[in-house]
């Protein structure tokens, strides 16, 4: 399939291989946003006239679509936020900040994104609870056995990414969640790198909380999703209060909040973003998430088959089935590799990929990461591999 028609940037000569950071947006998403601003620009929650009612309808339609997309039981379990980072902060500070007690334990890993680990650091301080790290295998994967070993009587919550953004390993979250629940432990999943790339079913997983971002799955920036089970969202204390989320207040400070989802969506929402996101979901549904996943896995296999022939390249995650390839070029600092590739119009990310404590385990601080999406082609891969097949990368980067 050729996606150049839907994604204009693809025809510009740029080889975009940084889809973990954000994906390109198809023109249907951009047009939808344009349509809102051009033809029915009104605020939400003010359905006193037709334009505004249309906005409300579009938002609740998107909420239904998201619920269906991840198989949530009820669309009120879908809270719109500004992104996975905000979703995780609301869950961790708003719920667990009040749930954890002195001496309780939080289980996570050293391969997590800053957006998950830093809110936990704060809550650990304010609640006097402790963060414990699940041991990673030598290949950096997480196993149920290691989770079991890390659990103690004090463990109250396990929190980790479904798929990490550095090497892209897939954690056995279904098994972890089942075991956690048998031991009265809640589970918070960072799904920023999994919902865009494979079918996620929150009901089947039985996950308690889950977070992801629209912009990593064809949608606009500034929109994210917080999924939580109704009973927990009801207990979640809003971090931000204001208009749109209250049912009643008076001068004596008697305040009553609305029910979820409104309780957790204070202020004017990102209307254009949410409406645009709806089209992103339609686009992915039309492709089919199984097909998206299979295509990425196959394309990575092709990339590995070519890249592993290069003597100057080390690959850290050859066998992990997804679209993420983490590598270094021998003797060349990752930043210089990226500068070199940039000269050839190839976009890859370098650094610790927001998982700064992983270097304690990985042994290298900085890597290059190419991350694929369904619109990438074998030609893109060839361009990257051909560029890396060069003994003078450092010289040519200058």
């Amino acid at each position, binding site marked *: 399939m050729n996606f150049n028609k839907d994604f204009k940037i693809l025809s510009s000569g740029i080889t975009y291989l940084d889809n973990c950071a954000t994906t390109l947006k198809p023109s249907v998403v951009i047009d939808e946003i344009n349509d809102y601003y051009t033809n029915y620009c009104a605020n939400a929650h003010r359905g006193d006239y037709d334009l505004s009612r249309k906005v409300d309808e579009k938002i609740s339609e998107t909420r239904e679509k998201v619920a269906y997309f991840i198989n949530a039981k009820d669309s009120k379990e879908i809270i719109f936020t500004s992104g996975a980072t905000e979703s995780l902060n609301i869950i961790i500070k708003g719920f667990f900040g009040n749930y954890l007690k002195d001496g309780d334990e939080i289980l996570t890993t050293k391969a997590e994104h800053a957006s998950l680990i830093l809110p936990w650091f704060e809550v650990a301080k304010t609640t006097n609870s402790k963060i414990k790290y699940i041991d990673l295998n030598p290949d950096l994967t997480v196993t149920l056995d290691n989770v079991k070993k890390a659990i103690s009587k004090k463990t109250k919550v396990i929190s980790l990414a479904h798929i990490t953004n550095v090497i892209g390993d897939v954690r056995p979250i279904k098994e972890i969640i089942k075991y956690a629940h048998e031991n009265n432990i809640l589970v918070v999943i960072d799904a920023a790198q999994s919902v865009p790339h494979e079918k996620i079913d929150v009901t089947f997983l039985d996950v308690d909380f889950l977070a992801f971002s629209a912009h990593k799955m064809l949608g606009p920036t500034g929109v994210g999703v917080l999924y939580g089970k109704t009973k927990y969202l009801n207990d979640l204390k809003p971090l931000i209060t204001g208009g749109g989320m209250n049912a009643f207040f008076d001068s004596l400070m008697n305040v009553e909040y609305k029910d979820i989802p409104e309780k957790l969506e204070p202020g004017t929402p990102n209307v254009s973003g949410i409406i645009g996101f709806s089209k992103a979901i339609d686009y992915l549904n039309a492709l089919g998430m199984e097909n998206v996943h299979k295509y990425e896995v196959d394309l990575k296999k092709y990339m590995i088959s070519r890249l592993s022939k290069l003597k100057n390249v080390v690959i850290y995650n050859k066998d992990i089935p997804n679209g993420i390839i983490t590598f270094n070029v021998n003797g060349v600092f990752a*930043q*210089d590799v990226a*500068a070199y590739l940039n000269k050839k119009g190839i976009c890859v990310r*370098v650094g610790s990929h927001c998982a700064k404590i992983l270097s304690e385990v990985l042994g290298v*601080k*900085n890597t290059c990461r190419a991350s694929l999406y369904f619109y990438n082609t074998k030609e893109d891969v060839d361009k990257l591999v051909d560029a890396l097949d060069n003994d003078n990368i*450092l*010289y040519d980067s*200058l």
Partner: protein
Amino acid sequence: MDVNLRKSIILEHYQNPLNKGLTNDDSYIKINMNSKTCIDNLDFEFKINHGIIEDIKFDGEACAISTSSSSIMSDLLKGKSIKQAKQIIKNYENMINELPYDKDLLGEANCYDEIYKQPNRKKCALLPYEGIKDVIDKLEGVKNDKK
């Protein structure tokens, strides 16, 4: 500057940097330059007495541009007075930012005269200069406070 000469100066200073390795001597002023926008992470030490930069050392993990730039800067500014250093830094910044500058002041640092063509590497070339500017600002701040 000729493109091959430019590249060979950068490579030489990257592969055999001058003044690399810290002294951990208390008579040096220390500063860490951890680039907020990329992955460079360099430590600098400056020995400044009576308004003269007597010594500069650096160490850390960084790309070819910021490592070579640190090496060249350490060589260029060593032995200079703060006043001379400020003038060199100003001209260097002007070169990076495509403003008029005096290339006679910059010695080997002229090898970055076309770095503007790779805008996301400008910050690498500037990193060590940001470090010494911070140190000079602090020193002069202290002096002004005393007045």
